[in-house]
């Protein structure tokens, strides 16, 4: 063993749990993009097939009850890294030997070789939505104006404001005390709690128990399991309960005073328990004492609870992994061969201090000699839209198939994947065409391709043709979505012939060359990224699981790691204007995040925004304005509207095949497209169907399963106008109006 102590890290760096309303049945979060969740036993132990591969779950509801959705559990593990060169790490096991720092109250720190016996996992979930500011699109991204309205604005007394936070306090579990509940003391949910310090009191805050329609007495639970000597943490989220202190009505897709939901997020830390043989001397006599110690895992993690992923195998147009990757590449020297200071090597691009980062950020740029890999860095961007035809009808009028991946289609990988060879580049123009219709980051408010065109034909529309971060208000509009800067850079390289087709070059040794994520990840980084690849990476209005705060480099301690703030029990921060009145804690991104700080931007209750995120008519008359009032001045301007621009077809289905090869139906049939529907969704989310995939390649299709027709009625086909049924169409309104 070398002389350095081991670095321990928790993976995934950001774990994702999902709400569910079954009593105890759950499955594990998938760790690869677009894959089904992993089956597990009642303690969260992964189920494996004979080859050792995870068994996938394809049933998402209670075996006997289609109104009960299973929870998705976030699983955490501790990896050990031998030294700085070790980038892969290895999960620690009971009995594993590592170098630990041993320290007691009376001895100086020293390094000892110890054996792992257990891990004390500590998690602290909270929900700060009701205590936070109103979500108003892009407002707040750069800080909140003093006049920015708060949710529940009448609550201005700091202690009362803190009461709006759902804070069950932290829980610590390990192999001996292997279950914990983020539940109200004395509640039914708290009874299963067997956590390490369960008798330690904490100034919990929960919503009043009489909120309607559903009360909230827990944000979730923890368990620890041992599988093949690995000690793993399982985090389960809330039950999907949302309720209001008033007569429940929904007034806005995102801000509803009096409401609470049981979404949450918070830090995950761990302490490794180990034993070692301590040698002391009595004169010449060697005395060996078996001693136990603990050491904190130096690099902790975070857990985020989201709502169910109804189409687990369909990737979002931009995944959270891609969104964060882009940020870390451009701001944190994550992949200097892509973006850095020449020569684009790791050695030359390792800023450590703030000053070094400032210099690096000033000088770094995309590497013109970077060759993106077709199947890893290009094809996902190009193939995803074709899947969306199973959750959305693209062109109600033309019926065209703009994303056709088949022979002759715009997005046929057989032509797009061929790089120039021997000076021949037959698909150069096709690639240039595809690049030309991709929306650049400076075209967020452009609907169509610019430039000369034959006026008799339609201009091509810019892609992706999805809603952006702000198609609603007039503050910093971002009407449409663009791929990330880094993805666009990959596309640019590709269009110019600078890319590699992996299957041409190393397909022989890697049969999965067309899917780099075909095998479950074995490295810590692979797990980090795999988990986030199933989280929505945009648009953020406010977003799916997380909002635009993920685009702020201040919240990270290192790539993919949320910075942990220190805080005192019962003293979680509240918006600054109120915190200032009694000097209590206000948010401070530079110091890190507290429990609840990642999800507080999301709509409350989440079901309202989720229901409304179908598609949107966007006013494109003027680039810089979403809302215009020409009638107030009698301006005869002809308004231009981009109709039916979808939000996130993979995250919130709209029109889906009723069954395999079945006809298309509205996914949310039975829930009307209005505020009453939003309110209905507070209950109906658990009755909606899931979509699973069948087949491979371009013949792969998605279809609906497990819809609870008993609660929602039979699904409605587009074109069928049935009284009281939804068309799935629902426009979010600027919540300032």
């Amino acid at each position, binding site marked *: 063993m070398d002389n350095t102590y081991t670095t321990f890290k928790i993976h995934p760096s950001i774990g994702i749990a999902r709400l569910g309303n079954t009593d105890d049945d759950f499955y594990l979060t998938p760790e690869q993009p677009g894959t089904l969740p992993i089956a597990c036993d009642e303690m969260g132990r992964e189920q494996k097939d004979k080859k050792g591969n995870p068994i996938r779950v394809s049933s998402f509801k209670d075996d006997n009850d289609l109104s009960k959705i299973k929870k998705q559990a976030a699983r955490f593990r501790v990896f050990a890294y031998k030294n700085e060169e070790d980038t892969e790490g290895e999960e620690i096991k009971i009995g594993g030997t590592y170098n630990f720092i041993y320290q007691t109250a009376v001895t100086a720190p020293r390094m000892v070789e110890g054996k792992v016996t257990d891990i004390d996992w500590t998690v602290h979930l909270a929900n700060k939505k009701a205590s936070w500011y109103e979500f108003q699109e892009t407002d707040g991204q750069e800080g909140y104006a003093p006049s920015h309205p708060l949710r529940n604005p009448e609550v201005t007394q700091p202690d009362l404001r803190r009461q709006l936070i759902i804070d069950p306090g932290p829980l610590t579990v390990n192999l001996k005390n292997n279950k914990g509940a983020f539940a109200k003391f004395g509640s039914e949910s708290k009874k299963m709690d067997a956590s390490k310090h369960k008798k330690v009191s904490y100034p919990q805050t929960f919503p009043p128990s009489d909120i309607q329609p559903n009360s909230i007495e827990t944000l979730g639970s923890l368990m620890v399991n041992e599988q093949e000597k690995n000690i793993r943490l399982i985090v389960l989220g809330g039950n999907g309960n949302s309720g209001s202190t008033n007569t429940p009505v929904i007034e806005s897709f995102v801000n509803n005073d009096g409401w609470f939901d049981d979404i949450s997020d918070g830090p995950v830390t761990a302490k490794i328990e180990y034993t070692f043989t301590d040698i002391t001397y009595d004169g010449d006599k060697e005395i060996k004492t078996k001693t136990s110690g603990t050491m904190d895992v130096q690099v902790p993690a975070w857990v985020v609870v989201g709502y169910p992923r109804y189409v687990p195998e369909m990737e979002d147009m931009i995944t959270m992994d891609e969104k964060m990757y882009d940020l870390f590449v451009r701001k944190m020297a994550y*992949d*200097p*061969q892509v973006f850095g200071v020449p*020569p*684009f*090597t*790791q050695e030359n691009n390792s800023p450590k201090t703030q000053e070094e980062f400032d*210099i690096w950020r000033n000088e770094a*740029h*995309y590497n*013109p*000699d*970077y*060759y993106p890999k077709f199947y890893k860095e290009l094809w996902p961007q190009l193939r995803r839209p074709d899947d969306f035809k199973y959750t959305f009808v693209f062109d109600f009028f033309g019926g065209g198939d703009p994303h056709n991946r088949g022979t002759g289609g715009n997005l046929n990988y057989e032509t797009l994947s061929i*790089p*120039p*060879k*021997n*000076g*021949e*580049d037959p698909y*150069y*123009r096709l690639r*240039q*065409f595809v*690049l*030309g*219709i991709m929306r650049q980051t400076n075209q967020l408010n452009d609907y169509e*391709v610019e*430039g*000369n*065109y*034959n006026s*008799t*034909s*339609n*201009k*091509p529309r810019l892609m992706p043709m999805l809603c952006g971060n702000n198609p609603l208000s007039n503050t910093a509009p971002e009407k449409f979505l663009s791929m990330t800067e880094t993805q666009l*850079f990959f596309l*640019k*390289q590709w*269009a*110019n*012939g*600078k890319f*590699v*087709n992996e299957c*041409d*070059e*190393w*397909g*022989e*040794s890697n049969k999965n060359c067309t899917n780099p994520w075909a095998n479950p990840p074995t490295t810590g980084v692979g797990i980090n990224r795999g988990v986030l690849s199933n989280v929505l990476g945009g648009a953020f209005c406010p977003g799916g699981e997380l909002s635009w705060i993920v685009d702020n480099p201040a919240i990270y301690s290192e790539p993919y790691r949320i910075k942990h703030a220190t805080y005192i029990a019962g003293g979680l921060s509240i918006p600054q204007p109120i915190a200032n009145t009694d000097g209590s804690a206000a948010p401070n991104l530079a110091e890190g995040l507290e429990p609840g700080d990642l999800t507080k931007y999301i709509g409350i209750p989440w079901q309202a925004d989720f229901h409304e995120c179908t598609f949107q008519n966007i006013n494109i008359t003027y680039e810089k304005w979403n809302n215009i009032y020409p009638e107030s001045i009698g301006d005869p301007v002809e308004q231009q509207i981009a109709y039916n621009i979808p939000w996130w077809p993979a995250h919130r289905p709209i029109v889906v095949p009723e069954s395999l090869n079945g006809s298309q139906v509205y996914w949310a049939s039975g829930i009307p497209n209005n505020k009453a529907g939003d309110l209905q969704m507070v209950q109906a989310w658990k009755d909606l169907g899931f979509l699973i995939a069948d087949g491979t390649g371009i013949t792969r299709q998605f279809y609906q399963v497990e819809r609870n027709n008993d609660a929602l009625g039979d699904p409605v086909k587009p074109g069928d106008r049935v009284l009281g049924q939804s068309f799935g169409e629902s426009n979010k309104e600027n919540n300032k109006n």
Partner: protein
Amino acid sequence: MSGKKKKISQYEQVKKILNTLQGKTVPSYQGLHAFWLDPETFITASLYGQRLIAPKEDSDSGQTSHGCCGSKDSSSVPATTKQSTKNSGGCCGSEESSTDAASLEPAVSAVQQPPTTTSIGDCWPSGGSGGGGGGPTQKRSDQSAIITGLKGHYPFDGSIFPKLLWDAAAVASADQIQIIANWIDADCPLTLEEEQKRAAKVTEVSTNNSRLALANGELLHQVSKNKTNQDHRDNKGLTIRKEVSSLTPEELGTFREALNCMFQYTDYWQDERSFDYWARIHTDSCQHGWEQFTTWHRLYLYFFEQKLQDYNQDIALPYWSWTDYADQNKNTFNNKEYDLGVLPKAYGCYLTQKGLDKLKDKKTSEGKSILNKKEISSLEKIVKNGTIYNSGLRFLKAAGIPYEIINVNNVAVWSDKIKAIYDILKETNPLWFPNRWPGSMGPLSQYPTKEDINLLLSLDNFGDFGGGPSYDHHYGSLEKVHNGMHNFSGGTNPTYPDNSDEWKKIYKNLKLTPDPQSKENPIYGWMTDNRITAFDPLFWAHHSNVDRIWARWQELHTGTPQEMNAVLAPWSMTVQDTMSIQKLGYTYMKDSVFYDVSSKVGLVKFNSAPTQVSTNTLDTHRKAEIKIHRVQRGNLQNAHIRVFLNAPEASIDTPTKGNDHFVEEITTFHGSCYGGPGHCNLPLDKTRQFDQRQLHHHEPRNYKINATDAVQRILNNGAKDITIQLIIIGIDGNQIDNAVYIDGVSLNFMD
């Protein structure tokens, strides 16, 4: 390998290795497939922008200066023209012309914007990337993708591409990679015959290796064999006027060649190429006895030297350091023994075999050989011994050839035989002059010593030193000393009747009237006569020394002549224009030793071979200075450079305090540089006539380090020669190999 086995060529070995490594399946390699099997592909093609085998260095540098955008980075340029025709039509990313817009679908053409390239190319010519911009030059193999790829170095470290070969049966061993690298560094011979042909060139390849060894101080930097002025000019330094005894045989040879060439134009004395043209200027315009003495002669030398440099730009006028010969001349100055004065050997009279052969062929008008057997054998002895004589007379005396004067139209001239011999002697050493008999002129003042010159230099106003203005004219002390040396070097003609009873008789017999200004047998040497002094080539070395002493005085004092705006005819320059010799482009050194250093490799330690300067230089120099030439500045880290003498083992850990070998520590102060690609490159050489811009901020700079005391300490400790060591230390105190890029180190001795 066993001797019986048929020897196979390197390329065959390379193919075999790569075939074996690849195994059965060959991936696309961007359509190149088994690229190693086709030498043309292998040597010219790129794999995803990575040139498999780097182009040869010389072809690379050609691109740097003239290429179009991005051509500097050869790796990003498609390897063959065939490849480049497809999409990259013009220069600098002007690609719109390459797309045939008319044939496109309207919707397609709507989006056919010219692709905006992420990188702007570096299409600006420059002096090259230098050490900081481009990093040290590596071996050709190190820049070849096949080698970096097999080794798994960036970008084949998995960051952009996996290690080569792809989908291979095996991973290359270090030995296998080395065989391929050797083949590339031998410039990719394809057959055994080619290998042998290139074997001679292998030494060149090894220079790359030795470069690194030199930069690490493992090999000694040898004294440059170039002419001093070639090295200094190559490093954009001033022309060095050296003490004449420090000229190398080559330098002396070129100087003599130039004068011989000038002498060929003697009949065309209005031609600037004629030596007489220049000598006559003194006759017509010289300034003596007032303050323009120094300034006029400075320009006179300047323009003459410029003319010489037209012939060969390495030429500089040497100077005759009078005081170096003071000891030897103690007894030659004030006595009746004529032409025994000691002058620099370069100006002496001697004969070479070639000259002797020519003499042997010379016939009198009667067709007889001009030399008899006895004379020939004496001359052969002189040639063999290589003896150098103070004067022509001394030479003739040694050869047993009587000096003969004849009467031609009542003018005393040399006999045909003497003329023939003198012609050959002049041709052999154009610096020798027949009418020069250095030494005594009878009772004269003292030969100047070092102390005398120091006294002269201590004068603290220009008037005393250099003379007074026209309205209060008087000689300066410098000129007075100068006068004495004119007379000493010209000397007294022992064969002039006034000086010899024997020659009184000879003249009488020849019915000749003695003429003190006789062209071929004057009373004194021509150096003594300011009308004709410049015809003696020694004049120029003499006046260089005068000019040097003034330049030294200028370093010590601030005084100037009073009439600064006066024009110095026949030139159009003024007194003011002569005030700086540096501005006129030259400086004086007793001797200069240059060590060429490669700026292609970052210096870690400089370790020199001994200087091999003369004992005289070591003994008599006034100042010793180490100059570090052309220290690059662009985007380099700061570092300390510790300078040692005679400490070949010096390292980072060598103490400096109390160490007699330690000279000085200098610290560089650079900065990062901002701008487009190539902004940190070295600037172009200034070649345009009207380029009046200031020193470019990335022009490499020089450091001068006064090493006088250190050299003295070393010599006092018994050293017989000097070596120089530079140790490069990062500002963090650790070794650093990419902070200091220099072109040379010189040790310069000043009088």
